[in-house]
Every structure is written in structure tokens, then in C-alpha cells.
């Protein structure tokens, strides 16, 4: 039956032609100052989405707001021609920004382009750092919050679930996000090339600046066993150690501490070599020659160049890591076509689903129309002076109901079976095919 079909498609309410619209700005269209002003906190995002839905402007809304983008996805029942302008106005009002400031900074997408944009975003194809992984989690969180807030419906549910699937597939099937593209991440990846799993290993970080912090984050993400931090300013080392569950050491204890770790990261400023070959030789003797990886992120270098080539000491400096980063960036770029192919595949799937949903809405509207005509005809016939008996009325009611069911069932079953019909239904030829008008003539022939 047609009603079953509609239920299968949407999973909730039946709707007519629903269009997706997107407005937003990102690192490519807006400077940081503007991005800061149009960013939504999670609470603001939920409130704005709810307000838009309640105002009747749109039926469904999700706002994705990260440090590099603020995007508003909406679904409207009818044409979205004026919708982007309405959304931009709301955007401007919400953040108390003159519309003029947003001129040329906001992009608008609708239908296919909107779906494609979201799929590219979750894949990391639209990110500042190509293939970054964080965006997938950020979109997932935005979707979960909106779903919990009740501002989503069947279209955005499907769109965002498809988007999360695309994000996972791109990361699993391509190398878009596998190779490190920051110096800190590349250094940590190199240590894994030596020690494998970092879980049972110990690292000593010399310095407590931003780069050192990045290294620490990467080491923690890779499951490093123990972390020791040493800095000229003990307070800063202690503060960082507290944040990353490490142990701060006094600057004077640096040389003695070199015996324990398998990884030493140097990220300090200064013109002298803090780590000399003789210091490393002593340390290697004390540690019975166990392999040691030294990552020197300081410029000028804080490890004596003569230390290079020592047995079981692996020394990397910023030049080595920079070269790896460049190589990895190129490798990531080479993966773009494979990622785009996955995006396109899912955009087509989503549009096919959306068309089938629209088709189901169309059929349901037709059923309602036929039903109301049926009721009206029956009423006029039986309420008149020559109205038939109750038995006649019952038979006629049953007959006309069955007739409607048969009329609607045919296109519904066509939609169920034939994928090509799920593309946007446009033109009379498609409608003739959808309603099986050409087939019905053949069937009537003896």
C-alpha cells in the first residue's frame, strides 16, 4: 500500500517538496575578526535553530559553528529562492551585525550544492588543514545537539547521517587525514616509526611554549606512557604538567633526567647547544645503549649537530620534519579525487532518497485529493432525494476506496522498485511513467 511505502521512506512525517538551503562563512570567505563575531556557542546555536523553526521560516535547522566556520542548514517546505536572504537577515540580526558587513562574506547553497558542501566539510576537503579529523566530531556534536533540541526533521536527519557516513568512509578509504601535516605531529609519528606503540615509553619535553604543548598533545593522543617536562621557568613547566598529567622537573635536573626517557623533545629558545654529543654519550652509557629519539624543534638548534650519527640515537630537526610535512601535504592533495568521488556518490544517494520522499509526498497529496473528491461525490449522491439504500452506500464506498488504493498503489510500487524514478520528478514524461499510464493501456488489451 502507498501508506506503507511513505512510512518506509521518511520514517516520520510525510511531506511535499522539501529544499535544503545553507548559508555560512568560513576561513576562505571571512577574516578571523568576522568569524569570531558570527560564531555561535552551542547554546546560541540551539536557540537560533529553534527560533527559526518556530517563526515558520523553515521547518528544520542545524547550525554548525567551529573556529573556522559558522553555517546554518535549513529545510523549507516550498521553493528556497528567498530563503537564503531570510536566513542572512536572521544571521545579521542575531549577531547584531549590519548586513553590509556580511556582503561578499557569506556563501549560499541550495539543494545538491548544499548537500555536497556539507559532505565536503565533514570529509575535511573544505578545511583550512586538508583532511583534518576534528571537523567530523564537531559536525556530529552539532547534529546530536540539534536532534536533542527538536529542530531537526527527516531531511536534516538523513542529510547529517549521510554526512557522518561520508566522513567515516573518506577517512577509512583514503589517506586524506592519515599523514601528519604539522611539525609536532610529524615528530611524534617519527617516534612511532622507531618504537611502535608509545604506550610503554617515556618522553621528556624541554620547553613549555606553544610548540612544546602541541607535541605533548600529540604524544598524549598517541598514548605515551609517561611525560616529564622541564623548563627554565619551573612555574610554566608545572602549569603545563598539570594540564597534561605530566611531571615537572627543575631545570637543574635536566641532564640527570636524560637517562630515563626514550624520546626527548627540545623546544627552547637560545643560541647555545643545550644538548651536546658528550651529554648524549653519557646518557646512552647510563641507559645501556637503549634507542633514543631526539626531536629538536628549536631554531637555532639546541642539539649539537655532532650528535648526529650516534649509534641508536635518532636525531630529527625542524628541517627534517618540515620536509616530511611538505611531502605529506602533497600526498594528501593526491587523495582529493578519491575523496570527491565518495562525496559525489553519497550526494547522489541522498538526492535519490530526497526525490523518493518528494514522490511519496506527491502520492499522499493525490490520495488525499481523491479521498476528499470521493467523500464529496458520495455525500452528494446519497444525501439527495434519490439516495440509495445503506447496503448500496456501503458497497459503493468499498468500491471507490479500492479504486483509489489501486490508482495510488501503482506509482507507489514503481517508486519502490525503480531507482531512476527517485531522481527529481520533472516533466510529464516522468509523471506518465510514475503513474504507469503507458502500461495501463497494454494491460487492458485482451
Amino acid at each position, binding site marked *: 500500500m502507498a501508506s506503507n511505502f511513505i512510512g518506509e521512506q521518511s520514517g516520520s512525517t510525510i511531506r511535499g517538496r522539501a529544499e535544503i538551503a545553507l548559508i555560512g562563512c568560513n576561513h576562505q570567505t571571512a577574516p578571523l575578526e568576522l568569524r569570531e563575531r558570527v560564531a555561535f556557542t552551542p547554546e546560541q546555536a540551539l536557540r537560533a535553530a529553534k527560533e527559526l523553526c518556530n517563526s515558520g521560516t523553515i521547518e528544520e535547522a542545524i547550525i554548525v559553528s567551529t573556529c573556522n566556520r559558522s553555517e546554518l542548514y535549513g529545510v523549507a517546505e516550498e521553493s528556497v529562492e528567498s530563503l537564503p536572504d531570510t536566513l542572512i537577515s536572521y544571521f545579521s540580526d542575531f549577531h547584531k551585525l549590519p548586513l553590509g558587513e556580511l556582503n561578499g562574506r557569506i556563501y549560499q547553497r541550495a539543494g545538491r550544492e548544499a548537500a555536497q558542501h556539507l559532505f565536503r566539510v565533514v570529509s575535511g576537503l573544505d578545511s583550512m588543514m586538508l583532511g583534518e579529523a576534528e571537523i567530523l566530531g564537531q559536525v556530529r556534536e552539532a547534529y546530536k545537539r540539534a536532534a536533542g533540541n527538536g529542530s531537526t526533521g527527516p531531511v536534516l536527519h538523513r542529510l547529517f547521517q549521510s554526512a557522518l557516513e561520508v566522513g567515516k568512509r573518506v577517512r577509512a578509504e583514503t589517506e586524506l587525514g592519515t599523514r601528519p601535516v604539522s611539525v609536532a605531529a610529524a615528530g611524534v609519528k617519527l617516534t612511532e616509526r622507531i618504537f611502535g606503540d608509545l604506550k610503554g615509553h617515556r618522553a621528556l619535553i624541554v620547553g613549555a611554549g606553544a610548540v612544546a604543548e602541541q607535541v605533548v598533545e600529540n604524544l598524549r593522543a598517541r598514548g605515551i606512557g609517561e611525560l616529564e617536562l622541564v623548563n627554565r621557568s619551573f612555574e610554566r613547566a608545572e602549569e603545563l604538567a598539570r594540564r597534561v598529567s605530566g611531571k615537572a622537573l627543575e631545570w637543574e635536573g635536566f641532564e640527570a633526567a636524560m637517562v630515563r626517557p626514550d624520546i626527548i623533545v627540545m623546544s627552547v629558545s637560545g643560541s647555545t647547544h643545550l644538548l651536546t654529543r658528550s651529554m648524549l654519550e653519557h646518557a646512552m652509557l647510563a641507559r645501556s*645503549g637503549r634507542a633514543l629519539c631526539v626531536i629538536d624543534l628549536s631554531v637555532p638548534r639546541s642539539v649539537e649537530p655532532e650528535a648526529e650519527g650516534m649509534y*641508536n640515537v635518532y636525531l630529527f630537526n625542524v628541517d627534517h620534519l618540515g620536509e616530511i610535512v611538505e611531502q605529506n601535504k602533497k*600526498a594528501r592533495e593526491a587523495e582529493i579525487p578519491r575523496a570527491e568521488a565518495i562525496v559525489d556518490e553519497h550526494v547522489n544517494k541522498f538526492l535519490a532518497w530526497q526525490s523518493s520522499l518528494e514522490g511519496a509526498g506527491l502520492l499522499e497529496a493525490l490520495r488525499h485529493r481523491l479521498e476528499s473528491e470521493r467523500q464529496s461525490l458520495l455525500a452528494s449522491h446519497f444525501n439527495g432525494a434519490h439516495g440509495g439504500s445503506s447496503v448500496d452506500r456501503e458497497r459503493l464506498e468499498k468500491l471507490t476506496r479500492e479504486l483509489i488504493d489501486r490508482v495510488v498503489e501503482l506509482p507507489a510500487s514503481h517508486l519502490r522498485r525503480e531507482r531512476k524514478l527517485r531522481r527529481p520528478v520533472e516533466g510529464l514524461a516522468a509523471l506518465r511513467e510514475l503513474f504507469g499510464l503507458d502500461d495501463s493501456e497494454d494491460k487492458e488489451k485482451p
Partner: protein
Amino acid sequence: MTYSMGMDIAALVLYAASFTGYVLHLYRGGHWSGRIATLLLVLAIVAHYYALLERSHVIHAIPYDDLYGSMSLFAWLLAVTYLGLEVFHRRRAVGFVVVPFVILWLAVAVVVAPSRVPHDPAANGALFALHITIGILAYAAFAISFLLSVIYLIQNRVLRRGRPGLAFWRFPALDVLERMSRSSVVVGLVALALATTLGFVWEHRLTGHLAMADPKVLVTLIVLAVYAIYLVLMRASAWRGARAALICACNFAIVLFSYTAVNLYFTGFHRFF
């Protein structure tokens, strides 16, 4: 007696398909290409086993009488040992190095295989069969440790130069390569010690004495000694790393010498490969 090569060819095709899977796994990543490569390797090992079984049925003994049988058995044990290491260490990245050697060994065996199977009635019995089979298993394990050591040395060099290529990121870490190589040496050492003991027992039963002065026996004892030294050195941190890998790779030269030159030109009774 004639022997059909159908299963050997099937095994070769499956090994080649498995190799393609390992290469894809190395360059494109993803779990599926790796899993398919391993599955194809398992199928190849099964097909290869049936090829060896068929040959055994023809000669009523383990197929080691001739160069073909020995090489085919060696290739099979190489694949089996590698599969064991892959499962134990959960690393597939060196499959693309090991499987080509399996293919090469089996392909050469197929090409040089005689259509008529020779057989020495003296070389029969379970003890003798075990002696030879376990001996070949030891050679296969040493061959894998050699390949792993070579990969270690290459990767170590690449790391030291600080300019790794794209495939570099897919290889196992130095530490993993070292552990895989050590596991392989342990398997080889135990297998060779067992094979040597079984050989002594078999010879004593057959002749009533032990031919300790035979070059094959002497070289085998040297092989046992150098690999035992390798394992002892591996316990000291200062020897671990590139030095240990170099020793392991050099040790294999003695294994090769024992497997080829000694068998062909020096030994009196170890004419079996």
C-alpha cells in the same frame, strides 16, 4: 610415475593474487586489502599443501627427494612461517616482501621439476621425514628473519637520513621489525636443533654411528651457534638495533652456504636438499 602440476599452478596464481593484495595494502592502506591479501595467502597455502600431498602420494614419502620437492616444501614452509608471524605480531606490511620469494621459489621448482619422480628407498620413515621437514622449516624461518633484518636496515637508514618516502609510513616500526625477526630466529633455532637431533638419531639407527665430521653437520652446528649468539646479543641494549639486524642478515649467508654449496659439493650423505 607422473605428477600433475595443476595444484602448483593454482597455488602460484593465489600467491600472486595475495602479493597484489599486500602491495595494495602497503600503498592504499585500509583493512580490507590487507585482509583479502591474508585470505588469499591462506588459500594459496592450502592449494600448495594439496600439491605437496599429491606429490607425497606419488612417491609415498615427504617430497624432498629432488630439487623440486625440496624447493616446493621450502616455499610452502616460508609462507606458513610468515603467516604465523603475521598473525602473531598482527602486522601485514612485510607480506609484499616475503610473498615474492615464495612465488619465486615455487615458480623455479615448477620450471625445473622433473616429470619422473626419483625415490631412494633408504630415505623413508617418519623420523627421516620429520628430520628433513623440520630442517627446511628452520631454513624458511631464517630466510624470513633475513628479509626482516634487511627491511630493518633499510628503514633505519631512511630514518637516519630524515627523508622518509611515502611507503615508509606503512612499514612496521623498527621495534616491531626487530621483534618479528627475533621470533623468526627463535622458531628457526628450535627447529634446526630439533632437526639436527632427529638426524643424529636416524643416522645412529641406520648405521650405528654418528658422522660428526660431515661438512653438513659442522656447518649446521655453526649456524646454530651464530644464531644463538645473535639471541644472546639481543639481550644487551647496546647490541640491539642496526648491529643485531646486520648480524642476523650476515648469519643467513651461512644458512645459504649450507643449503646450497654444502649440499651440492661437500657433504657425503646430505644429498637431499
